[in-house]
């Protein structure tokens, strides 16, 4: 579903991504692990169109998407979350979510002024959906709070909630677990599995090995900007190169 070929990205001499090739199969929950600075987040930035790669190709559903603008990539139904939460601070939690759905008629001024009935109806449905999502991630009591007032963990949840609003074909999660408490995390894991069962593919960066090992198959290991190896949890655990990479040998 997602194919990356010989990708390169250089930041003023730092080769963040170097000759990186990998593939994510449709319907999987693929894990992406690797030591700090391995280039995982940069890879997400390249896939989601925030940076254009220096060289190489990115294919999604048989279409080449490298170099496209971020909003175009979202419209191909590929969505990502951010490692450091980027909530829309001076907007309420509810507004943060109601922003997401694509093709809202009220997002054009002509719709606002000439189709008020239709816009109102869409807004109502949109709000209902957002409330359900908030209910699910247990932030419903904060719906009218400015997003800047949430705690770090709650902001992380809001990141994930956004993807639930969008219903994409593939979701890139950048450390969804960081800062979220265990109970809720377990609930999230269950939900990721549920969404996945309905056909959504996941690519998930995570440092929590227990979580990755139990949720992801296959797991891709990155080191120094390219793919080191790939396999099931068991294979990864027993691969000496992976340990070396983490120990920085």
């Amino acid at each position, binding site marked *: 579903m997602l194919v990356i070929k010989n990708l390169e990205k250089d*930041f*003023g001499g730092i080769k963040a991504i170097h000759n990186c090739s990998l593939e994510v199969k449709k319907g999987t929950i693929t894990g992406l692990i690797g030591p700090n600075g391995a280039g995982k987040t940069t890879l997400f*930035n390249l896939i989601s169109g*925030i*940076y254009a790669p220096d060289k190489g190709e990115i294919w999604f559903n048989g279409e080449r998407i490298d170099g496209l603008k971020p909003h175009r990539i979202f419209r191909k139904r590929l969505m990502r979350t951010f490692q450091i939460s980027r909530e829309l601070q001076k907007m309420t939690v509810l507004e943060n979510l109601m922003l997401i759905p694509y093709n809202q008629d009220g997002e054009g001024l002509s719709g606002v002024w000439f189709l008020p009935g239709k816009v109102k109806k869409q807004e109502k449905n949109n709000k209902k959906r957002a409330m359900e999502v908030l209910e699910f991630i247990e932030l419903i009591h904060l719906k009218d709070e400015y997003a800047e007032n949430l705690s770090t963990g709650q902001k992380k949840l809001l990141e994930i909630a956004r993807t639930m609003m969008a219903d994409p074909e593939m979701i890139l999660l950048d450390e969804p677990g960081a800062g979220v408490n265990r109970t809720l995390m377990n609930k999230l894991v269950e939900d990721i599995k549920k969404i996945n069962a309905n056909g959504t593919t996941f690519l998930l960066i995570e440092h929590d090995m227990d979580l990755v090992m139990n949720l992801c198959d296959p797991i891709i290991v990155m080191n120094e900007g390219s793919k080191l190896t790939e396999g099931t949890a068991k294979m990864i655990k027993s691969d000496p190169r992976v340990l070396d990479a983490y120990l920085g040998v």
Partner: protein
Amino acid sequence: MPQLIINGIIMGSIIVLGSIGLTLTYGILNFANFAHGDIMAAGAYLCLFFLGLNVPFVVAVILSMCITAGLGILIDWCIYRKLREKTSVVLLIASIGAALFLRNVVQLIFGPQLVYYSSEIQMAKKLPFGIRIKPDEIFIIAASFLLIIAVHLFLKRSRIGKAMRALSDNMQLAGVIGIETEKIIFWTWGLGCALAAAGGIFLGLEVQLRPMMGWDVLLPIFAAVILGGIGSPYGAMAGGMIIGISQEVSTAFINPAYKSVVSFMILILVLLIKPSGIFGKKERLA
């Protein structure tokens, strides 16, 4: 035409002096300082004040540069420092306020009228190719050249200078060099504003002094900074010369009143073709 190029080099020197400070503060503090032109004007008027006390010209220039450096540091300390965690645009608004404040304090003290440093009329020297140049103008070019060499040595040799370049290029690198950011910011304002004062004084020498003089050069120095690539002092030097010369040469074809429109057009062209400027660094995460 040779005459226009010489005039362009004179204007270019002045713009370069203004734009080095602007590009460094832009690169390091990540905000467009709209008060930089008025800092130049403040330096020019300080020099006028010292000349009024019968201080020799060169001494007056040096004194004004020092005091303007202090003024820049003071403004940073009173206003910008406290707004640094806010977005760069809040700083930009604050700098517009600072610009108007400075300009009108100048007008309050010195009045709105045009003034000259000296009422003597200088005889222009005749050079080959029909070029005429006044002693003042030779002084401007020579002094600017010396100052630029000094800046170059400072940036390449001194620890602070190296850190400044690193910081204006990339925030993370400076941590590696291990000098506290606040100290570098202090020096950046000092250096930038001292050079701005020199630029302002030379502008006063070449044209005349008016409270609006700083506002009028703001557009050319911004054009120079963007042309050279924000945060790059060497880019600003090249950009300043290009802008200065194009402005003067353009007067052969169009009304000289449109000089600053010319620099604006160059700026728009740069934005269209290569927004990072000629020496600009690569993209950063928006």
